[in-house]
């Protein structure tokens, strides 16, 4: 089977399994709270099978990930997840400055003399608006007031 077809089939297969999973997990729910998830599960499974049938029959499959920079996208998602994970550990200011710098750097901004102060300025600017003006308790190590 072609790589492009295989990639395209993952979507309906995922939804078919997802529909079955919804049905499976809703089996212990009562009549009132379980009816709606069961309806959703059945609908998901049936439509996913339809989609799978059409995708299997389709001959001309385009590779949806061809030409895109998937590695960079995954890298960005990992960086964002790390940002969330580290927030309470290193504090908002440092964490945000780091992610802002990472975004600029990884998108190809190479003027480091400007990138660092810009990243710090974004972090301080957002801190000022949210923590000082709006009173949002952003996690901080320093400047905890």
């Amino acid at each position, binding site marked *: 089977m072609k790589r492009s077809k295989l990639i395209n089939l993952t979507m309906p297969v995922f939804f078919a399994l997802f529909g079955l999973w919804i049905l499976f997990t809703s089996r212990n729910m009562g009549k009132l709270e379980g009816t709606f998830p069961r309806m959703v599960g059945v609908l998901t499974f049936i439509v*996913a099978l339809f989609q799978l049938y*059409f995708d299997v029959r389709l001959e001309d499959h385009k590779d949806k990930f061809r030409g895109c*920079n998937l590695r960079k996208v995954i890298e960005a998602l990992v960086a964002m997840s790390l*940002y969330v994970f580290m927030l309470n550990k290193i504090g908002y200011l440092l964490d945000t400055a780091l992610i802002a710098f990472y975004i*600029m750097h990884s998108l190809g901004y190479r003027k480091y003399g400007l990138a660092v102060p810009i990243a710090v300025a974004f972090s301080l600017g957002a801190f000022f608006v949210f923590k000082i003006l709006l009173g*949002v308790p952003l996690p901080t190590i320093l400047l905890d007031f």
Partner: protein
Amino acid sequence: MENILMGLEQFANPIVILSLLGGTLLGLTVGALPGLNDSITIAVLIPVTFGMDPYVAMVTLVGIYTASACGGAIPAVLLEIPGTASAMVTTLDGYPMSLKGYPKRGLSLCVTSSFFGGISSAVVLLIFAPLLARLALKFGPPEYFMLAVLGMSTVIGMAGRDIAKNFLSMTLGLWLSCIGMSPTTGIDRYIFGSASLMDGIPLIPRMIGLFGVFSILRIFDAMGKDREAASATNGKVIEREDDKIAIPDLAMCKRLLPTWLRSSMIGNILGIIPGAGMTMAIFLAYDQTKKANPKLPFGTGVPEGLAAPEAANNAVVASSMVPLLSLGIPGNGTSALFLGALTIHGLRAGPAFFKDYPDMAYLIIFGFIFANLAMLPMSLLFCKYLASKVLKLNPQILAAAVLTLCMTGSYAYMNNPFHMGVAVVFGAVAYLFWKFGLPQAPLILSAILGSMMETNWISSMVYSEGSAIVFIQRPVSLVLVIASAIFFVWPLLQRVRKSRRIDHKLR
């Protein structure tokens, strides 16, 4: 009348006026920046409005929504890059007009057409939203259930070509609406042991992910491609001496009036229908204008080619708020964000909105009217002095600013880092949806309407002792059943007819 005056009274506050103007300027700016749009900006800014006065917050968002569709035309005309998806069609005649040496005339036409479309939709909102809300006050659970079904049917029938994909997107949204406590029994479902999921997945971080984080991932996705290719022809644009930013003269206005009227009507109707949206409106308006003017060489810089999509996209803006303010059903993704904005200020959109919060309801309506009135001169000045500077803003620095606001905004929603994670997850979901050609609109709408559907389904069943006949026994519900069937089946029939016509031609 008293209610209208209550809404108008709020504009006596200079801060409200300034916020409206500020929102309009921001809307123009983000619209002009390729990669940013109204949804991203509103999603990111809603958390910033937490601490604001609700009136100030809402008019700011109204200003952004009103002006961004107009701002999207600026790079479409000058660079052949649509600033927003709603300006895709504007490039067809906008850029050729620039190549002819009339970029400023092109921008002026876009601004004036946007104003015409925008004002028409604000008037539609003023007339229809209170009427529909008054009617909806008589609705019971079967009608509400059918209203949700109607919203789903239109979004599935019209959101895209592939109906099965629309369905799958919708079912995922419906499942998302099941997360948290059951609205009927209070028993938790699909919370995976997380207390943060007890109240379900909140709308704001979800939308920040679907719009804001996704916009960043798209930039990463495109890295390495020749992104400059589209603007490579930029150097060919020359400016003639008689080219200037100004409202078109009377003769041109007379010439464009039928196009403005036709396109505004298309935009207004499609705006009111949940799920139809701007993209459909611009293509339909352009197509109808072409049919109405068969002798004009569209695609070569014809004024009608700019007037049609620009009037249509702005005509969708305020009219998409009609179902939201009167029924609590968002017309599109951006109006869904308004639902979130109202909720965080303790307001609930729906039939009782005009009765419970008449000041806010009419503030929003008049906000759209005033934002359009302000948009015309502001857009002309913006195009004259700021447009070229805004287009030079560095996209890498902008991306960093957007992500900073996305993450901080998600945290600020309930002071919980968990919601930042929600935004990241939904950014990834939006990316996969985009890659696999799954439309986002059914996901957004069904995740909002899901709990309304479930609650009213159960209430209807209790009321009718388990018989589904209740949906066709009540006249309004029956009308909604028929309307749902039409909205669902009609686009399908159109497609079948179109494919038969193509087959016939090929033979």
